[in-house]
């Protein structure tokens, strides 16, 4: 019978090690030889126990032969110079699957799919998005290709109406948290124990890093109202701490525009916005009243007021 040299040549050096248990092991050795099975490294480890190696090609035949003679046979290991390749060959599918899985995991988690804008600065999401696109940060870009810290600095430089920009990765989304402010941020000293509102308005967002929030998003607050208090509860005990928090309040200013003419609501709004250039007006409402032959236009210009405490 012609030998299958192509497929099996590489496995000639492989040997399978078996443990044989039974009586009259000498008879077993001779019987294997008579069957044309070559035995290697025959070592007796007791009266009824023997370790023997068989070439890989003959291993199945040997196993069947031992079982036929009713000896207990146990495969211990495979040895030989080509054993690492043999292991790879046996678990090739597993290795391929693991590599593909790892590749997809890395690629899929590293791919940016979408942006999420949070905070009061999300009003300018179009400008922020335009900046990000300009620096190559767009859907299907890789997170590993850009530096979030540099992007935060870039967003602040590109958008003067923002006072804070924080970026972080959440799955495949890039979360962009921005805050509006045209006012200079005061130095955080760490010695503040309460945050009060300095205007009337509605809470747009509240972030408390230390302290306890007494209001929530959507709550109406008054000037002087306590928003964040400097305490926390530890194991049912109230502990005094200093406050570190950011509160954004949607408030308004009233601007009065007088005119002899009717229907000048738009002019009144433009007038009000011109007078509040430092406030970044986000919304306006106009109320018209008659006043001695003329008209008074009361414009409420809404803007976001960011209160830092810390």
């Amino acid at each position, binding site marked *: 019978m012609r030998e299958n040299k192509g497929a099996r040549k590489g496995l000639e050096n492989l040997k399978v090690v078996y443990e044989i248990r039974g009586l009259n*092991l000498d008879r077993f*050795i001779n019987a294997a*030889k008579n069957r044309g099975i*070559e*035995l*290697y490294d025959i070592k007796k480890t007791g009266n009824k126990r023997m370790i023997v190696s068989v070439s890989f090609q003959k291993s199945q035949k040997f196993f069947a032969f031992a079982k036929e003679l009713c000896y207990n046979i146990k495969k211990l290991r495979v040895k030989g110079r080509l054993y690492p390749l043999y292991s790879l060959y046996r678990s090739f599918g597993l290795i391929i699957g693991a590599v593909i899985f790892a590749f997809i995991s890395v690629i899929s988690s590293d791919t940016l799919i979408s942006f999420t804008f949070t905070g009061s600065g999300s009003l300018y999401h179009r400008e922020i998005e335009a900046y990000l696109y300009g620096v190559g940060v767009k859907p299907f870009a890789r997170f590993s290709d850009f530096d979030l810290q540099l992007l935060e600095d870039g967003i602040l430089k590109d958008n003067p109406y923002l006072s804070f920009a924080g970026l972080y990765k959440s799955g495949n989304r890039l979360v962009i948290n921005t805050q509006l402010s045209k006012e200079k941020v005061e130095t955080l000293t760490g010695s503040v124990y309460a945050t009060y509102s300095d205007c009337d308005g509605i809470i747009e967002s509240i972030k408390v890093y230390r302290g306890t929030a007494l209001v929530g998003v959507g709550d109406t607050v008054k000037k002087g109202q306590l928003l964040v208090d400097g305490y926390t509860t530890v194991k049912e005990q109230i502990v005094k701490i200093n406050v570190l928090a950011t509160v954004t309040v949607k408030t308004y200013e009233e601007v009065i525009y007088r005119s002899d003419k009717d229907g000048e609501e738009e002019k009144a709004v433009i007038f009000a916005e011109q007078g509040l250039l430092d406030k970044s007006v986000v919304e306006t409402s106009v109320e018209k009243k008659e006043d001695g032959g003329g008209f008074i236009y009361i414009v409420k210009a809404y803007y976001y007021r960011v209160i830092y405490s810390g």
Partner: protein
Amino acid sequence: MGFIENIKNCFGADELPKEPIFRAVLFGDSAAYLENVTAIARYEECEIVLSLKRGGLSVRGEGLYIKKYCSGDVVICGKIKALERV
């Protein structure tokens, strides 16, 4: 010229058999290669008794084990102290 013929010519031994019962090659005292072995009669760590066509051969030593056994060829490793016809 065959191996046996060479030996005969070297030693002038005309009585060397044409068909030897067995042939043994010793590699120092750590290994032995034997041909024309018909069976393993007994296998112990201190003695391995081989069956030949006529009679037997005892290999004595310490830590003996069979490195290879197939088709009448045996390789014995270990500390070999003596070979004796039995």
